[in-house]
């Protein structure tokens, strides 16, 4: 007797596997889907044609003034970006001193990258470097005036440098301030609580631009005669106060999520309020709201552009300023400049949002694993 030999399974119908199957399922499942797909493809092709045509086919790539960008059908004017690139990054920071800015950028990267990678150790030393040493280093390097460095006035700062200075200062200042405000809002002391609520609600209720107006127009009035801050510092104060109010609400969300038992356990161990907060509550609460904190950072980063309205030249401000340069006046200069600035901002914000998603996943696996 011959053994039983099963007929080999027949392959799945050709139109249910591979690309055809995928397309049938995901693009042409129903009549409506097919219609939408065709519409979407038309739209995408059209947008790609416009964008690609503008940025590559009709664009100018080399030249030293506006004549390079004056054709019948003209796309992007990239030589404009090339010619002004140094300005866009450093503003009017003196050419000979730009290495100092580069050094500050490099040191920031060296400190930040290992900090952001969860698997690299020595977090405490890293933190001390970033929050203790780095700000002092950056301040000395950027302003100069000591150690034989030439002094550079903040009115000469500009471009990406100002954007990053405002954003980083805002981020570094708003987190501790926000935590204090959030703790104050949940405090048992009625006066402290009322003050914190008032502060948070007022700053969250008004646009940043009015806060910046206040910082640039009203702050000088509040100070005694003769005391005056630099314009950049005034904007930094405004931005930091504004974002700390938003940060406070994010942190409060985290604080509310901590179960009461944690407080009671800490009290049972005899820990004081500050010890409870520092050792038990905050580490858990902050971990919970990392996505919210990063979102606030992204919002803050985008909001740094508003300083141009009160007369500082951040990246967008300096791009805007160079549109007035007559030797580069073409119909396409504006759009080219905005696309460049937009791409830079987009890169930073997108990177931050991806990092937040990465951290969220990383932390949630930690929790499941334990």
């Amino acid at each position, binding site marked *: 007797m011959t053994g039983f030999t099963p007929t080999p399974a027949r392959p799945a119908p050709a139109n249910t596997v591979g690309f055809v199957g995928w397309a049938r399922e995901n693009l042409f499942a129903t009549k409506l889907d097919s219609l939408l797909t065709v519409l979407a493809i038309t*739209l995408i092709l059209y947008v790609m044609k416009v964008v690609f045509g503008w940025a590559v086919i009709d664009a100018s790539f080399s030249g030293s003034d506006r004549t390079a960008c004056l054709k019948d059908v003209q796309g992007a004017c990239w030589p404009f970006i090339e010619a002004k690139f140094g300005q866009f990054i450093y503003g009017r920071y003196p050419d000979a001193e730009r290495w100092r800015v580069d050094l500050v950028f490099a040191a920031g990267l060296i400190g930040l990258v290992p900090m952001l990678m969860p698997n690299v150790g020595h977090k405490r030393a890293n933190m001390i470097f970033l929050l203790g040493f780095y700000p002092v280093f950056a301040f000395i390097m950027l302003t100069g005036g000591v150690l034989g460095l030439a002094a550079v006035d903040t009115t000469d700062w500009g471009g990406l440098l100002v954007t990053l200075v405002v954003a980083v200062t805002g981020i570094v200042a708003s987190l501790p301030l926000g935590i204090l405000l959030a703790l104050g809002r949940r405090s048992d002391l009625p*006066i402290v609580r009322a*003050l914190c609520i008032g502060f948070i609600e007022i700053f969250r209720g008004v646009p940043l*631009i009015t806060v910046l107006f206040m910082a640039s127009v009203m702050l000088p*009035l509040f100070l005694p005669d003769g005391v005056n801050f630099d314009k950049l510092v005034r904007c930094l104060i405004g931005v930091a106060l504004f974002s700390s109010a938003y940060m406070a609400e994010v942190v409060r969300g985290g604080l509310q999520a901590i179960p009461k038992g944690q407080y009671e356990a800490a009290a049972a161990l005899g820990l004081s309020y500050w010890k409870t907060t520092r050792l038990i509550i905050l580490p858990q609460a902050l971990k919970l709201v990392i996505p919210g904190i990063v979102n606030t950072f992204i919002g803050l980063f985008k909001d740094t552009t508003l300083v141009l309205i009160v007369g500082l030249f951040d990246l967008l401000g300096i791009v805007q300023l160079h549109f007035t340069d007559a030797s580069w006046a073409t119909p396409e200069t*504006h759009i080219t400049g905005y696309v460049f600035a937009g791409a830079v901002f*987009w890169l930073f914000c997108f990177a931050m949002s991806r990092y937040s998603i990465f951290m969220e996943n990383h932390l949630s696996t930690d929790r499941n694993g334990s």
Partner: protein
Amino acid sequence: MQAAVLGALLLAMVWLVANVQSNLERQNINSGFGFLSERAGFGINQTLIDYTEDSSFGRVLTVGLLNTLLVSVLGVFFATVLGFSLGVARLSSNWLINKTAMVYVEIFRNVPLLLQIMFWYFGVLRNLPTPRQAVSFGDAMFLSNRGIVVPAIEAGSGAGWYAAALAIGLAAFIWLRRRARLALADGTMMPIWRPLLMVTVASFGVAALLAGVPFSLDVPALKGFNFRGGITVIPEFVALLLALSLYTAAFIAEIVRAGIQSVSKGQREAAAALGLPDKTALSLVVIPQALRVIIPPLTSQYLNLTKNSSLAVAIAYPDIVSVFAGTTLTQVGQAVEIIFITMMIYLSLSLLTSYAMNRYNARIALVGQDA
């Protein structure tokens, strides 16, 4: 401890007020709100109410506030429509639609709003041809660097009949919806749209019989260097509205997506098991539950949009910050009062919006619990 905080705060306040007073005296700046009734002396290029250069600064404030409200309300409307469509598209089983919506959201929410406003204004709208070479749509609508000119509808005598017809239609809509909502408690489905259509068509038919067609079109035409007639929408307004709507829509899309995803699959399956058709399941089961998750963050997006409309100052759209905290401030110099008034107005707008949205939120939360 608390007394110390309060004392320190009071001392600081006294010190600040003293500083302000001495500074103001030194710079010869008046104080008080008397300036509000003084003559403004500058023109504004978009006014919803009568305004001339002889109007007062108080009138400037009203004009600016109305312009802020106009762009905010329209912005909220367009951002909501676009945002909900994108949010639903993000959940589409159609891969291409889904990814297109994703690309839109990622691009628009990661680029600063101010940059987007400037892009549309200086990059696009200001680059349009002059009125003489304006892009024409059927010789009735024109697009140029002076903005968009559209025909105006002028109502003659008898237009009141049409207004009455519209009012009847609206009243019928409200009544039909109420009837349907009450009937739903017994599980009866009452039609809304078909009777509404019949009522509206009938009432407008009667109006047409009684009054004929009392409307005429005021079509704009090129006279000299600019257009005469029609309604001109200034480019500042178009740029601001466009940027605010496109930017906020990206955020609303994410909120809507998260909201719909938060309704568990079992709810949909249960609705299907009860024999509800897809559309009914969506409107009676999924959307009411999703709305509860959507409304609170949606409120803060509306508030953000209103506050973001203050970026108008960058392109000189005459909103409250631009004409009041900007032009008026430089003319009068009373920074303290002007910034205070501006901030108070924004605060009240915020509080009013969140009050209204909280009321709405409470209503949907209740509906959910009753069912």
